[in-house]
């Protein structure tokens, strides 16, 4: 049997098929942020009530920065109670939750805050500059900042108790040790 090389012809299709099969292991919606590990961009916004809200004032605390919107159903509705619960649980230990409301209307946002009884500070990002500064794709997205003000973890989708606690506990422990 000579000309065995001709059987290489069908094999030419294999790399392409393997590449496509590899695609199943990826999620096209899951995009890593280049900001992780870098200092968090500062911002100065106004809260829904009109009070100034600056990131810099929370330096030295572990900051949980949550981007949300009242139209983001159901994920934002799922995570709102989680955020509130953990904010209450952790606030005495040097943790602050900051909400940033994006592409939203003030009345709708206020209603959302009222419905869920949110007590952590919530600012409105009217022009979208802060969301772009943080490379936000969609809501909800949550950034966990350490005491040095660096972004350590980016979480896409609704935050769960588990995610909140493990991440914040780790950042607290790390900051206490040196």
């Amino acid at each position, binding site marked *: 049997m000579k000309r065995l090389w001709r059987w290489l012809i069908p094999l030419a299709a294999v790399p392409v098929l393997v590449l496509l099969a590899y695609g199943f292991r990826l999620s096209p919606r899951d*995009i890593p*942020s*280049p900001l992780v590990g870098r200092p968090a961009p500062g911002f100065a916004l106004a809260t829904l009530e009109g009070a100034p809200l600056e990131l810099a004032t929370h330096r030295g605390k572990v900051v949980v920065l949550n981007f949300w919107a009242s*139209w983001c159903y159901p994920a934002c509705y799922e995570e709102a109670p989680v955020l509130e619960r953990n904010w209450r649980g952790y606030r005495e230990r040097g943790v602050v939750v900051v909400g940033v409301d994006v*592409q939203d*209307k003030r009345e*709708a946002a206020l209603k959302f805050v009222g419905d869920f009884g949110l007590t952590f500070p919530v600012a409105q990002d009217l022009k979208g*500059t802060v969301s*772009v500064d943080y490379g936000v794709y*969609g809501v909800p997205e949550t950034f966990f900042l350490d005491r040095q003000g660096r972004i350590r973890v980016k979480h896409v989708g609704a935050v769960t108790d588990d995610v909140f606690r493990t991440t914040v506990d780790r950042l607290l422990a790390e900051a206490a040790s040196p």
Partner: protein
Amino acid sequence: MSRVRIAVLAALALIGSVASPIAAQTATPVSEDAVHDIALQLRCVVCQNLSVADSPSEMASQMRAIIRERLAAGESPTEVQRYFVDRYGEWILLSPPRRGFNLLVWLLPLAAVVVGLATAGALVWRWTRRRRGVRPPPVTVDAAMSERIRRELESGS
């Protein structure tokens, strides 16, 4: 239909927001073309495959406003682009920057054309040579004759 109405009122409450006006309260005048050129190269982050220039979404419109602002503040188009890449990664560029591994996507199509042309050229050369080698040169039909044949063919008779 009440279901529609409720949903709609909810939706309206959300969307009919503050309509952040696009106005020329800027320092240096910025041409819309310059904004458009930068926006064309950026991927709209909430859409799937549209550029920031093309997308009708609110997010894209805010991003265009940011481009406009940064240009007005005196940044060069390259700097504006770098601002977005720093935050979203290379992913946000609709055409991969021409360096490193990305060169592959730019060069391979070119290589394909070159290899294709070379192969076709080599084949044509071989086939025409074979012809000459094996047989006597083909009879040259004179122009007038071929024209006549052609006319007769075309007349369809």
